[in-house]
Each structure stands twice: as structure tokens, then as C-alpha cells.
């Protein structure tokens, strides 16, 4: 083994530094979330979760993710099909543009929709005339969530489908399969783990997004607060135990996400599907 070529003291030193840093920066915050959440006992913990405002925040978060994830899933599959199975000019530019939302600050991601749909925005006066609200209302939150999770499925599927080529699909075509049959019987089984991987990451971000949603939400309690925004309000009002109780839901979501991610990586390796990079 190559590790043997490093002297023992070097190995011990480096491993210790890595583990101390890991403990302080990753493990300690995770432990702290649950400790702070349970500081005032289980009664307070569950009371904070059962509050109507908390429940409405959970509902809104599920709604936003429930719309954003399927839309971006359909988009990701369509984009990957067009990009991986066909040749056309400007392909590389298209791939870069799809990645764009990842490089935009979350706050700017919210701002762009305020500038279009807000009262002083392009459609603001028209929306106000027709008594429609996008900003400081649920549609704005959904839009911002779609934007920040836009690339997740596509960027997972594009390299995967590019690597797989088109031979199997062409064979199915020659044998008389129609478009949808080709996709569901031939392509889908080949990409299912990559697809699931993208959906898991997309969902985690959709449920946890803070900055973008914060800009468009208006923080109306019981109406336009998602779970992360509810955590912020509780924390700023010095309800630390309640804030951490609600935050613990998101920490559990993060742990479930990491576990699901590992399981999918394992499954993918078993079935020989090379997953693209994370993040």
C-alpha cells in the first residue's frame, strides 16, 4: 500500500489534523443543532413543530419543492435528450447557460423576479390591475425555487447520457420502437440512478433554499414562510429553542439526503452507471 511510504508520525499528524477539523467544523455544528433543539425538553420541541405557523411553513416548503422538482426533472430529461443524442451548433453554449443559475448569488436569483413581477417591475402594474400577486406570494417562492434548482437534474444526466451514446436507442428504433417506447424501455433503465441522484440533490436544495426565497417572500407568517424562513424569524425573535427545533427538521433532511446519495452512488456503481460529479 502506498500509505506505507509515509512515516508513521506524518500519517498520525495529518490524520489527527483532518479529524480535529472535521469534528470542529462538521460534526460539532450537526450535534449543536439537535442539542439546542432539545435544550428545553421534548415538550417544547414538539410544541414548536406543531405550531400552526410551523405547519404552514412545512406545507409551503413541500408545495414549492413539489412543483419545482418535477418541472426541473422534465426539463433535465428533455435537455439531456436533445444535447446527448443529437448534434447541433451552440451545444457547449447551451450547456453553460443551463449551469448559469448555480453561479448566481441566491439573493440576485430572488431579485430578478422582483424586477419582473414586483410592484415597480415590468408586469407589476398589470398584475396589480388584475389583482394577481407573484412577489410576496406563493408563485414568487415557487419561481425562485425553480431558478435555484434549475440545473441539478440536467447537469447530472447530460454527461451520463453523452457517455452512453445512442447505439441502444438506434437499435430499438430499427426494431420499430416509437419515441416514448425508446425512452422508457431503453434510455430510462440506463439513466435511472443518475436521474434519482439529480432529483435527491434538487429536492434538498429546493427545501433548504434561503436567500432567493427570502427576497421574494415578504415573510408573511402562516402565508409566505418556508421552513428556512420560519427558522430565521424564530431565531431573530430570540426563540432559539423553537428555531433550532424547526431547523432540526432541515438537519434531518440533510442527513437523509446524504444517506440517499450514498445509497444511489453504491447502486450506480453496482450497475455500472458512472455518475457525474456532485455539487
Amino acid at each position, binding site marked *: 500500500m502506498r500509505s506505507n*511510504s509515509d512515516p508513521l508520525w506524518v500519517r498520525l499528524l495529518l490524520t489527527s489534523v483532518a479529524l480535529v477539523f472535521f469534528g470542529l467544523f462538521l460534526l460539532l455544528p450537526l450535534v449543536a*443543532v439537535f442539542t439546542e433543539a432539545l435544550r428545553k425538553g421534548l415538550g417544547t420541541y414538539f410544541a414548536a413543530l406543531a405550531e400552526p405557523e410551523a405547519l404552514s411553513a412545512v406545507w409551503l416548503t413541500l408545495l414549492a419543492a413539489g412543483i419545482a422538482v418535477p418541472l426541473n426533472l422534465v426539463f433535465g430529461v428533455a435537455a439531456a435528450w436533445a444535447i446527448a443524442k443529437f448534434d447541433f451548433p451552440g451545444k457547449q453554449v447551451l450547456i453553460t447557460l443551463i449551469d448559469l443559475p448555480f453561479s448566481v448569488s441566491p439573493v440576485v436569483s430572488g431579485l430578478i423576479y422582483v424586477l419582473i413581477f414586483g410592484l415597480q417591475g415590468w408586469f407589476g402594474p398589470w398584475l396589480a390591475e388584475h389583482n394577481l400577486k407573484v412577489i410576496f406570494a406563493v408563485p414568487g417562492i415557487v419561481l425562485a425555487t425553480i431558478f435555484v434548482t434549475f440545473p441539478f437534474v440536467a447537469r447530472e444526466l447530460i454527461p451520463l447520457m453523452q457517455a452512453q451514446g445512442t447505439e441502444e436507442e438506434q437499435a430499438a428504433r430499427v426494431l420499430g420502437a416509437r419515441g416514448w417506447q425508446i425512452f422508457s424501455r431503453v434510455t430510462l433503465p440506463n439513466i435511472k440512478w443518475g436521474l434519482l441522484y439529480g432529483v435527491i440533490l434538487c429536492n434538498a436544495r429546493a427545501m433548504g433554499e434561503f436567500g432567493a426565497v427570502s427576497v421574494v417572500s415578504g415573510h408573511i407568517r402562516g402565508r409566505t414562510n418556508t421552513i428556512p424562513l420560519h427558522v430565521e424569524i424564530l431565531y431573530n425573535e430570540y426563540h432559539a429553542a423553537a428555531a433550532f427545533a424547526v*431547523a432540526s427538521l432541515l438537519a434531518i433532511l440533510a442527513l437523509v439526503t446524504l444517506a440517499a446519495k450514498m445509497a444511489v452512488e453504491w447502486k450506480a456503481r453496482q450497475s455500472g452507471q458512472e455518475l457525474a460529479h456532485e455539487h
Partner: protein
Amino acid sequence: MKPKKLRKSSVLPGFGLTLGFTLAYLSLIVLIPLSATFAKAASGGWAHFWNTVTDPRVVASYRLTFGASLAAAAFNVVMGLLIAWVLVRYPFPGKRIVDALIDLPFALPTAVAGITLTTLLNAHGWVGRYLEPLGIKAAFTPLGIVIALIFIGLPFVVRTVEPVLQNVDAEVEQAAASLGAGRFQTFVRVIFPELAPALLTGFTLAFARAIGEYGSVVFISGNMPMRTEITPLLIITKLEQYDYAGATAIGVVMLLISFALLLVINFLQRRAEL
């Protein structure tokens, strides 16, 4: 007959439909809203734009955002390399759990990271109470911002370096050793040059993420004008004061920086693939 190379587009169905949908959806969600921002900024006039983005309070926020992001990304290059090295090369108990939890900052919502780090680092917190006697204040100072950005950026470096480190040729290392190079010399002369592109990519990814970061920073920064206000926060402040033109101007500056960094990242990644 020689098998003719089939043009991909003529054989499989669905090209028009999927590309059409892709372009329409991309335009509606991403391209049109982003261009609207530039149009809005332009409509406010150049003088107003320039005055907003060079206001001393805004300039102070650039300095803080850039400085803190740079410091955090640089720290992550060192610590990320060390962690990747240990994960790839040394066996130790619990390694798989450590490896899985490296991605925690990607999975944990930023607001949760923000309130947790603030609670740990304030004067009464688990960590802050030991820093206080040493005269180190982390919460509500630039140091706290750097710590939050280190947390957010760590996985970028580890995950970019890890695969490259796994592929470093053992024979080259052995050759260096057999030619009389010490371990340290082998690392500096043989291994490090192979890792450098990945480290640079990881650094840029972590830096780009840090520049725009909001949720994990806003709680720990304390948001004091001229001292601990990051640039994304100023956009929110302007919006809360109904200064849409001001928010847009700063937003455009941030977008231009993001685009520039995206180009750099694309360049680095494409070069790495060659």
C-alpha cells in the same frame, strides 16, 4: 456495403420537441429574467448606477466579501487537500462516515448553518467561550464570516482533489523515491504539480460560491454598516428601502462577477479534461 455513419439527428425522434422545450424553459426561467435585470439597470441611467456601485458603504462591502471569500477559499485549499489526502491514502476507523459527512455543507440548508455557527461562536457558545478569554471574537466580526465561508466551501476542494489524487500514478512516486527523492521532495516535485489544476479549480469553485453566499453569513456577520455588511445583504437592504434601482445596480455588479468566475471555471475544467 460499408456501414454508413448515421447522422444522429436523422435517426432518433424527439429532437425538435426536446430542444424546443429546453430553449423555451431556459428562456422563461433564466435568460429573460436575467436580461431584465440588465435592462432595468440601464434604464436608471449611468450616473445613478455609478454612484450606487461606488458608494463608500457598498465599496466596503466588496472589500469584505472579496477578502473573506479569498481567505476562506485559500484556507480550504490547504485543509481540503489535507483532508482529501488523508481520505485517499490513510486507513482509519470511521472513514466512510467522515467521507459521507464532507458533503454536509452542500446538504445542510444555509440558514441552519448560519444560526448554528452563530450559536457556537458567540461569547456563551461551546466554542466562543474558549475564544473569548484569548481575546478572539468570532461572532459578529469578519472572522465569523470567514468561518462560515470555510464551512460552505470545504466540499468543493475536497471533492475536486479526491479523484485526481486517486489517479496519481504510484509508479511515478516510486520512481522518484528510488532516484533518492525524500517524501517531501516527491510531494513537492511530483505529486503537487499533478494536483495543482484540481486545487485551482476547487479554489475557484469555493471562491465563487462564497462571493454570492448569504444564508450562512447573514446571522454571524452582525451586519454593521462599513464593517460587517456583505454585498448580497446590501441588495436586500436596498430592496427593503424600496430602492429598486440601487438594488438592481449592485445586483448587476454581482452578476458580472459571477459570469466572469463562471468563464474562469469553465476554462479550468475544460483544460483539465484535455
